[in-house]
């Protein structure tokens, strides 16, 4: 191998030095780059820390505000049903229909067109229904009033009333269409609910109270119907045949009859006047128990008189002008005054006591045990009149009132069930699966009696069958009288 020359050695030496130096320089450069990146990262993190710190500084104020919202949340949504409670909506409508007297013929969801394309992003959602029903104007008014006064908000968004037909009972019933909207909310307000330390102590902080004062809780408005007083159905054609003057053959008997009728009404008005005078006396004396009894009696007289007057006006009973005039002057006029007096007296009536509630409850329980559904429902009707549908009672009686409402509902369901006239002709009992023959149809446990699915066979025993309908279980023994289960 030839030796390198001096020049070559020099170049080699320099080259090696440059290579090593360059390599080290590159590594130093890389480290400096890394340092710069780390410094940049530190600056970014400091910025983020500052932002997070701003949020952290607001924690105390936000905690108080969140606590204030959580504490009043239940009050705010008091008139909205939860999503899980919406199933009661139809049951409520059915109850109102029964209480007011309308008959529901159809319920369908409301397919409303929306003008905009955006979907609703509201915190609460709505449920829309269209109902078709039939009833008198008074019944319809009572129905929508019950709906609007219900503790859970239900809005009437549209309705229509058309001319009706007079039925066999001389009442004019109309076809009615009604669109309702109710609202639901989800109890889950947010995906993450932060646990606030020392929550109970912070609840009493002045900042929480300050937020409570700022937050306005919506109250649901309600309305009490004006007492109907001979107000005619405006959808009835009021044109009538000309009035007779009372002169001429054949009119004497009719006139005498109508005279007797108007005299009876005048006497009823006088009885009511005397009754109200007694009420005033009892009130002045402070005899509240006798006052309640007298008010109840006067109310019955008032209702009976009102029904008679309405029938007279609706059926145009009085066809002689002098009798019509006497009716207007001596019955209708005084009746209006008596109605005002009754209204005033009602407002000063004390709430129904626990003792009275217990008495009604006991009578209803006895009727339930005796399976006398008509009597039970009658008692409940009287209870409703006395207590103004369970609203004018002392706090201690509310539980009893709720039980009575439940008993009434069960009695109604059982009465409807009994109209089916079920007959259990045979039972084939087996531990593995029994069969009952009801009205000629073979049924096993879980089967529905009819296509509508309202009555289900719950249990088949050796000599009995338990049916379930609308939440009520009814036991029927083969060949014996039906037995019911108490609430």
């Amino acid at each position, binding site marked *: 191998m030839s030796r390198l020359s001096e020049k070559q050695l020099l170049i080699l030496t320099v080259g090696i030095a440059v290579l090593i130096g360059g390599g080290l320089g590159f590594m130093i450069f890389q480290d400096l780059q890394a340092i710069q990146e780390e410094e940049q990262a530190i600056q970014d993190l400091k910025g983020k820390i500052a932002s997070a710190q701003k949020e952290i500084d607001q924690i105390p104020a936000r905690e108080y505000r969140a606590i204030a919202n959580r504490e009043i949340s239940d009050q705010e949504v008091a008139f909205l049903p939860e999503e899980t409670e919406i199933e009661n909506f139809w049951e409520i409508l059915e109850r109102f229909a029964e209480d007011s007297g309308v008959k529901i013929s159809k319920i369908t969801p409301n397919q409303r067109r929306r003008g905009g394309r955006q979907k609703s992003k509201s915190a609460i959602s709505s449920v829309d229904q269209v109902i078709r029903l039939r009833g008198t104007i008074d019944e319809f008014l009572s129905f929508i*009033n019950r709906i609007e006064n219900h503790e859970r*908000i239900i809005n009437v968004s549209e309705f229509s009333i058309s001319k009706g037909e007079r039925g066999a009972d001389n009442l004019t019933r109309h076809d009615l269409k009604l669109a309702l909207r109710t609202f639901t909310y989800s109890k889950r307000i*947010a995906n993450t609910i932060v646990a606030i330390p020392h929550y109970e102590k912070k609840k009493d902080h002045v900042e929480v109270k300050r937020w409570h004062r700022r937050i306005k809780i919506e109250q649901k408005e309600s309305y009490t119907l004006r007492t109907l007083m001979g107000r005619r159905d*405006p959808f009835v054609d009021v044109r009538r045949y000309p009035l007779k003057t009372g002169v001429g053959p054949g009119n004497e008997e009719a006139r005498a009859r109508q005279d007797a009728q108007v005299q009876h009404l005048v006497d009823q008005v006088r009885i009511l006047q005397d009754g109200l005078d007694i009420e005033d006396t009892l009130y002045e004396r402070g005899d509240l128990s006798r006052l309640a009894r007298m008010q109840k009696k006067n109310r019955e007289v008032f209702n009976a008189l009102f029904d008679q007057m309405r029938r007279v006006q609706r059926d145009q009973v009085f066809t002689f002008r002098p009798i019509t005039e006497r009716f207007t002057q001596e019955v209708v006029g005084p009746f209006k005054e008596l109605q005002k007096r009754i209204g005033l007296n009602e407002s000063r009536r004390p709430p129904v006591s626990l003792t009275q509630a217990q008495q009604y409850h006991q009578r209803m329980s006895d009727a339930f045990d005796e399976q006398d559904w008509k009597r039970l429902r009658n008692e409940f009707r009287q209870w409703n009149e006395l207590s103004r549908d369970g609203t004018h009672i002392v706090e201690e009686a509310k539980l009893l009132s709720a039980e009575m409402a439940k008993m009434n509902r069960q009695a109604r369901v059982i009465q409807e069930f009994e109209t089916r006239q079920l007959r259990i002709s045979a039972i084939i009992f087996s531990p593995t699966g029994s069969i009952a023959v009801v009205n000629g149809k073979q049924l096993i446990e879980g089967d529905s009696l009819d296509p509508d699915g309202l009555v289900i066979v719950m249990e088949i025993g050796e000599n009995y069958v338990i049916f379930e309908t609308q939440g009520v279980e009814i036991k029927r023994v083969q060949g014996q009288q039906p037995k019911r289960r108490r609430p």
Partner: protein
Amino acid sequence: MISVNLLPPEYRKLEATPLARFIAIVVGAILVASELGVYAYVHYSELRSIREVRGATDAEYQNKKAQGDASLALQKEILAYEARRTAIQQVASRRILWSRKLDEFLDIIHNKGDRHEYFVWLEKLQVSPPRERGRRKRGPTSGGTFQFQGFSGTTEFSKVTNLRNAVRKDTFFRDFQRISPPAFEAVIYDDGKVPAEAGKFGFTLDLKPLGWERMPPPAKKPAKKKRRKR
């Protein structure tokens, strides 16, 4: 001149490293040694220390972030409550008690049994909600319509206008913004009942926008300045 060294190699004078190469080696060695020193300082001191600072800052950030997220979650919860509150206020405010309206309206029609001012009976009554406006349109201008058609017990048009006035003056009308002029047509009956003639009419009432009581009053436009003509 050619020179030959006859001495055996062990007796020959050693040659010194050439100066250029020597300088190159020394400079190279110094350079490399310096760079090594710098590298060691930068890598093992500066870089390590800055990485430790970054680690500590990162840990601090994670801690703050958790608290910050909790604060944001609280804010989100508060906003959700307020959104629900607003929705509930809208539901409650945009509500008309139709049982009250209908009760008041039936009283107007009945007019306490008086037949002199007007005497009517109805054929149809319909309440319709407002039509939904498109996305680009501003808020609703009407809360819906209340339409009724019926008959007056006489062909005198004044009775129908009396009814219209009675509707306008009653508390029933406070939720409405306008009532249409009456559509009127005389009708004759031949069934023996009285009255034998009647006036068929119809009205449409426009409701104010739902929740109108809570809306702020419209801002008054400033009066325009009139220019003087010279």
